[in-house]
């Protein structure tokens, strides 16, 4: 029941500095020579921030870079404030790394004044989060087909979704377009609040990440009717995909990755790619992914850029905002 002395020592050493012992690196080319700033364009305590802290901890504890690395939260404007800071103060600086995610991509589509992904050089995607259709455990629908049939048999917008943010809204929009039914949408501050509304019976369904719903799924307070994936989830093997149920819904997952400022030289970008690949492969990261019921998805460099381009098209299409 106690913290061991070792874990306490580890904790003490997790303060944002690594031992200054340079690690013999096989990679030729660029190596950081001074303190690295890790910019998190989101507030402390949110999901994005927690991921950043896990990545930071892995880099520090496994001594993946030979210099100290300091976290800097610059929250605001759906990621635009933090990336604006990078653009203004850290242009082309390879000693800066930034956390980016789907929200940073959606922000400029809705608010063109906010510039985000166009201002950074994406280096590597690290993970993907899934979306599932949830209803209450005692709801009369067995699968997504039942649910859609019920929606179509009533006046439009009779069934309501509670959503916990822009990405949930996108998932509902995809579902509505793929199934040809109309739904009512109520947006809340977080997935947790949306879940509370579902449990209270104020709405009929939620579209959310498995993490928040897992405990309730196990106690059968909610059930999952479908997932937006090509193949079934290994953890939730009994939840059918939307495609299996005959809905032609595109694969929809929320991505999270790392970037450096725009104009970072190629050799520095390659260096960071190597670091993040080691992060994703580490046991701590794998444990984090497992606890969050997410998918580790290292997509490096050019492939990441292509992936982001496709995502951008999908988002713009869903939001009716062509480029």
């Amino acid at each position, binding site marked *: 029941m106690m913290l061991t002395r070792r874990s306490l020592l580890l*904790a003490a050493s997790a303060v944002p500095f690594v031992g200054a012992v340079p690690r013999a690196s096989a990679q030729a080319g660029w190596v950081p020579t001074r303190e690295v700033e890790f910019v998190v364009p989101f507030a402390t*305590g949110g999901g994005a921030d927690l991921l950043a*802290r896990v990545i*930071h901890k892995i880099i520090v504890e496994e001594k993946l870079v030979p210099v100290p690395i300091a976290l800097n939260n610059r929250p605001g404007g759906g990621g635009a404030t933090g990336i604006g800071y990078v653009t203004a103060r850290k242009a082309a600086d390879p000693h800066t790394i930034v956390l980016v995610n789907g929200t940073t991509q959606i922000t400029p589509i*809705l608010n063109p004044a906010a510039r985000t992904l166009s201002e950074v050089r994406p280096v590597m995607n690290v993970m993907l989060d899934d979306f599932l259709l949830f209803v209450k455990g005692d709801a009369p629908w067995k699968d997504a087909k039942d649910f859609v049939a019920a929606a179509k048999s009533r006046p439009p917008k009779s069934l*309501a979704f509670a959503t916990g943010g822009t990405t949930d809204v996108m998932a509902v929009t995809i579902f509505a377009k793929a199934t040809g039914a109309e739904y009512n949408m109520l*947006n809340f501050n977080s997935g947790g609040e949306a879940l509370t509304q579902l449990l209270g019976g104020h*709405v009929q369904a939620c579209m959310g990440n498995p993490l928040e719903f897992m405990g309730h799924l196990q106690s059968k307070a909610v059930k999952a009717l479908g997932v937006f994936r090509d193949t079934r989830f290994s953890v939730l093997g009994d939840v059918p995909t939307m495609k299996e149920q005959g809905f032609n819904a595109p694969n929809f997952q929320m991505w999270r990755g790392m970037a450096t400022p725009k104009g970072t030289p190629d050799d520095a970008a390659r260096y960071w790619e190597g670091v993040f690949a080691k992060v994703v492969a580490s046991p701590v990261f794998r444990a984090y992914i497992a606890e969050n019921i997410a998918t580790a998805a290292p997509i490096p460099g050019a492939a990441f850029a292509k992936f982001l381009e496709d995502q951008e098209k999908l988002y713009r299409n869903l939001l009716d905002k062509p480029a």
Partner: protein
Amino acid sequence: MSVIYDLAAGFAGAATPWNLLMCFAGVFAGQLVGALPGIGPSSAIALLLPLTFGADPTSAIILFAGIYYGAQYGGTLTSVLISVPGEPSSVMTSIDGYQMALQGRAGAALGIAAIGSFIAGTISTVGLMLLAPPLARAALAFGPPEYFALVVLGLTALAAVGGSVLKGLTTGMFGLLISTVGIDQQTGVARFAFDRIWLLDGVGFVVLTVALFGVGEVLSSAGMSTPRPITTVKNLLPSRAEWKQSRMPILRGSFIGFVVGVLPATGATIASFIAYIVEKKVAKDPSRFGKGAIEGVAGPESSNNAAAAGAMVPMLALGVPGSGTTAIILGALIMFGIRPGPELFDKNAALVWTVIASMYIGNVILLVMNLPLAGLFAQLLRVPYSWLYPPILALCVAGVYSQANSIEDVWMLVVFGALGWAMMRYDWPAAPMILGLVLGTIFENSLRQSMTLSHGSVEIFFTRPISAVLLACAAVAVLSPVLVRIFRPRLVPGA
């Protein structure tokens, strides 16, 4: 009986030297961050989270819970002494608490806050222990219309704080207007942001509070032609009479705080607002409020502490966050491999009961720590004010900057600080404006969510029983002074 057995086991778990140390560290850190504007319990927990990876989850949750309710004690300190509320839930405290400090009664204000917080914290921990599962289920009955009605009830406080009803309503409306700046939650579109990225998140609560209360107070004191007299600190602890006045407000505050805290997404801030209005409504002489009424400190302070324990109810019993801070504690549970959900109470009984036991211990630690400190900190006011205001201004600027590392926030502080000075100079109350800003977002969102749900019909507010009752309470709160004025001449002829 199983409650007693579980609790005894919990105490056994919480009383290990290491867990006691964690509990002390938590409440101490909480007290500290609560006193500093800008950094709140949620950021403190997020910052400490990586340090606890690999540690025992029970110790870590004891630490985090300690930070959470400890912060409610800490917020009192700066609100009373220098009129800078460290936390949203301390705004109401600063109204009467600061007036008490000016009268040399800072020790009494801080003392009653500590005692009230202790009683409220203990009462609501008992509530958490005995009622968590049924209460958490009851809280689920709150959908958008019920939240809307609750916020309407909270908004009736606009007229209750500050002297003039008209001025209170005006600044309250201004607060509501400010709350519409930024990204609209229902559609994701920016409003009144003028293409400024830093306005996308709207005007921060901390910025406005620190500006209107802290900077405004410093500027207006500095602008006086005669230097403010050095306060003589009278008694360091509440007198017997003051304690008598505060007993009922503490009990009422505990009850209100616990119930409002249980409702997800409302939390300590609304609880403290409602407790203040209730005290003013039941007071024999409401005109004392705003001029150093000890009930105005005892009620809200008890209420915000009780709410912190109340917010743990949905977290422990349902696995849904009751406030921003408990959302982070939930995230921490997940990191420790504990899946929050309706079965937490059964599946992780040892953890839950040990944390509950630690909350009793933490509240005792806070009381022991705060009673002597109340007198000590009250001495601070013996320092001439001309020496105090530079560090107060520095604290305001540093606090506002540090919450998002944003220089634009500091400029907003300057602008709203000037407004705060003007409002103080011409006697316009600042509290309703803060109230408007805090409640505005929930007001608008729950209204629009309700209307979406009902396809545009307002009937939804009156056909749902909880919402109807809350709206009726709000109507009574608004109309009672009017009715009293109509009927009083007949009841008391010649008055």
